[in-house]
């Protein structure tokens, strides 16, 4: 995976969380995902198709997910609430949609979101393409952004962004 491709996701997650949840997202050092860690309680997954293959995943603890959902929806939402998965899925959808718009010259489609709920689960993905983990912290707690994306044709990444360093 070209590390330039992570910047649109960083921009999008910061913009989405600030606009929809009123939360500033502080980005930690990205790293290559070398096993199925991190264990998470809630993972929200969006797949890519068209000129791209792969997915973006947000990994949360129950506590952080509840606080993020509550900030997003403007109402108390815990993991038992019927809108819990819907809220996280939609938030991930907005993050993925904002990121894909930054890839010029390619046609990327995003899937409907899937949300996995279960204490300390892992999300496995194809090992054929590197996946990058980005720690994020907010006033609602910490979570991880995971990106694995391969483009089938070259794309320009729009926006004046710096390439984040990746620690293997």
């Amino acid at each position, binding site marked *: 995976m070209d590390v330039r491709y992570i910047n649109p996701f960083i921009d999008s997650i910061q*913009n*989405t969380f600030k*606009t*929809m949840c009123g939360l500033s997202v502080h980005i930690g050092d990205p790293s290559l995902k070398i096993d199925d860690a991190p264990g998470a309680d809630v993972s929200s997954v969006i797949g890519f198709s068209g000129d791209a293959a792969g997915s973006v995943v947000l990994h949360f603890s129950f506590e952080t997910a509840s606080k993020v*959902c509550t900030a*997003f*929806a*403007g*109402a108390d939402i815990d993991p038992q609430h019927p*809108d819990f998965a*819907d*809220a996280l*899925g*939609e938030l991930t*959808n*907005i993050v*993925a*949609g*904002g990121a*894909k*718009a930054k890839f010029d010259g390619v046609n990327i489609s*995003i899937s*409907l979101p899937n949300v996995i709920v279960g204490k300390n689960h892992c999300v496995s993905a194809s090992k054929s393409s590197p996946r990058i983990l980005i720690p994020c912290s907010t006033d609602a707690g910490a979570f991880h952004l995971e990106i694995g994306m391969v483009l089938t044709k070259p794309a320009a990444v729009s926006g004046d962004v710096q390439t984040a360093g990746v620690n293997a």
Partner: protein
Amino acid sequence: MNILLVDDSRTIRNIQKNVLKELGYENVWEAEDGVQALARLKEEIPDLMLVDWNMPNMDGITLIREVRKTNKSLPIIMCTTESEKSRVLEAVKAGVNNYIVKPFTVESLGEKINATLAKAAAGSTP
């Protein structure tokens, strides 16, 4: 004033409903996809429709094309994550009156709704 919200996310519909309530519009109908929306439109025509693009069963752009076959005047706002220029043009060509990209602020959504309704009231819808 009747407003139809079409989005597969109940969270987004609730956010939109809260904005509409603040604007004084309380008579809100909901649909989870284009199929449900078309069924609702057969019963009654609203004064405004907010439509998501990516939904299961029938997406928003298909819904708008279906609606415009028989109704050229219903004000429609597309509210979506699809922000590429080509997508916006596609939606305009299909017949939307206004377009708002997620993420949106409550203020920006309110402004788009008010502007679209004002234009419709002035008789300038396509």
